[in-house]
């Protein structure tokens, strides 16, 4: 089994909710052992998609193939997959141990075996052993998360699905759990299919990412390739904090819309193309600084983001986001500054 083998294939998968298509003709191959993330805003159909994969929702058309075998009609309880729910859906009337052992209980495993497996899993997800007899209602948010994870792993599933399980966790703990999720994927060697509305979260842990919008996959690729080359304006904006510059045609050729600067050589653009500039690529230029394109703007405000500082600058009513070089003192609000970028840092987005 290598990491390039396909474990789960989606073929033209659709789900129709009374005339409204929540998922439209999704075709996708998920590889053995990878951490695959489907990311999209709420209402993009990502939850419906994962529920179909888990067997909790019936596809309207298309096929789901698990290692080449069609599993459309296999109910959730007969699929070798487990899901970690957004709400976690822990059994509140049971102890931590009973929750984790549930999949083994319904299989009729004996007590000794169940207990041994629970202990092993609790260690894997870093839950203290004395939590075994504790009621899940008395666990903290992070602990409940770990119980849900252990419970999903108990049956030794081929694929684990995650439906935004970290969305209710506070920021600091979320950052830790995101990394643990990636570690767990490596340790167990299982295929993880993860859903989130946060591209940032997806970037941290994924091997590959599919971006979803209105029931369709609009981009599929490795995190860095999506980061560096978003396929559309939607994907670019979904990642947050970017500058998008419109391109238009005037008498001489293609120019940047608001700046009326002719496009540099080597940038293939037609009318309707957008140029994406990341904040770190749009620099505040010192007195004698040089760049391919420079223009004047007024500093609106600056924001300290830990080790970095972001600056919002205005030119007419256009706002630009720039990241200051380390150690550079931020300009005062209202101060005139010179911004600049190089053509090689601009990414053309044709949508």
């Amino acid at each position, binding site marked *: 089994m290598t990491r390039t083998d396909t474990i789960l294939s989606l073929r033209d998968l659709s789900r129709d909710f009374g005339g409204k298509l929540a998922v439209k003709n999704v075709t996708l191959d998920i590889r053995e052992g990878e951490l695959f993330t489907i990311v999209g805003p709420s209402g993009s159909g990502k939850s419906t998609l994962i529920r179909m994969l*888990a*067997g*909790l929702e019936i596809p309207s058309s298309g096929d789901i193939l698990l290692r080449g075998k069609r599993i459309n009609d296999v*109910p*959730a*309880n*007969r699929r070798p*997959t*487990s*899901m970690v*729910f957004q*709400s976690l*859906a*822990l*059994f*509140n*009337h049971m102890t931590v141990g009973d929750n984790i052992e*549930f*999949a083994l*209980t*319904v*299989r009729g495993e004996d007590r000794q075996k169940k207990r041994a497996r629970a202990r092993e899993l609790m260690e894997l997800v870093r839950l203290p052993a004395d939590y075994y007899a504790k009621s899940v209602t008395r666990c903290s948010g992070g602990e409940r998360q770990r119980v849900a994870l252990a*419970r*999903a792993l*108990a*049956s030794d599933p081929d694929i684990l699905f995650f439906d935004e399980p970290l969305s209710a966790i506070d920021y600091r703990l979320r950052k830790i759990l995101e990394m643990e999720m990636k570690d767990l994927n490596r340790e167990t060697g299982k295929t993880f299919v993860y859903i989130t509305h946060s591209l940032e979260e997806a970037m941290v842990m994924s091997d590959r990412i599919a971006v979803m919008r209105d029931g369709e996959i609009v981009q599929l690729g490795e995190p860095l390739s999506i980061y560096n080359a978003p396929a559309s304006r939607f994907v670019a904006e979904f990642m947050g904090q970017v500058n998008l510059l419109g391109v238009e045609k005037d008498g001489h050729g293609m120019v940047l819309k608001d700046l009326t600067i002719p496009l540099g050589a080597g940038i293939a653009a037609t009318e309707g193309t957008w140029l994406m500039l990341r904040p770190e690529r749009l620099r505040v230029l010192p007195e004698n600084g040089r760049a391919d394109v420079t223009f004047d703007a007024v500093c609106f405000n600056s924001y300290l983001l830990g080790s970095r500082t972001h600056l919002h600058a205005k030119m007419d009513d256009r706002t630009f986001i720039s990241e200051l070089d380390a150690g550079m003192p931020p300009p005062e609000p209202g101060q005139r500054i010179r911004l600049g970028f190089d053509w090689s840092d601009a990414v053309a987005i044709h949508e």
Partner: protein
Amino acid sequence: MKREQKAGLVLMSPPVLLLIAGFLLPLAFVAYTSLMPPRTFGFTSNITLENYVTAVRESYWRPMAWSVFFALATTILTMLISWPIAKALVRKSRRFATIVATMIAVPVFIAETVRLFGAHLFLMPRGGILAGTINYFFGIDIGSVLFTPLATLIGLLYIYLPFALFPTVLGLSQVPADQVEAAQDLGASPWQQLRYVEVPIASPGIIIGSLLVFVLVLGATSESHMLGGQSAVPIGFAIEQRFNYAQDWPLGSALATVLCLITALLVFPLLSRLDLDRLFGR
């Protein structure tokens, strides 16, 4: 005594006094009367267990057994019937739930005697609604269901279904849909989802419903009066007869006391397991 404690006592005293005067005192009278010599009226100091001996010797266990049987059968059957209806009421649309709930609740507002008379007409032989319809369409004579223990049971199911249904709805509404899905996802068959998730979480409602039906049926008499005839005499009817027709209050009281004890023995262990806070979502 603290202020709040005082306030609590003041607020609690009217219902407590009412319970003492209206419930505990009569119960004590009944218990004491059961220890009087046969056919005495009023209290004397001659305490005897003779009535209890008579109750056993003259095979009063028979109506007692019928009552317990009817109570158990009605409880189990109404629960089985309630479960799918309750599930539909909880999971389906609000509109559907309102219609079905109304259809089940409205008959409760009609006098029991009237409803049982309706059931009587329904079960009557030959010209009755059930027998007549079957005869008309299939030409089969099903004979008489009326004046059999089955008729009593049908009447009991009809009258006591709402008492089982509504607590079950309340209990089932506490079952989160995602936990049932999680159970399914973890490999539980529909039967296992029921056993490990739905029933345990809905149990306060199930216990309340079962207790209501069980206790009410244990004392019920009208159904066998109007539908069962003499085929199966329930204990409530036997007690009534001791008081009215036979004019033997002590024996009637002895039977009533035994009935109370049986009820208490079955009800209290269940009640102690009931978590009312959970039912009310606290």
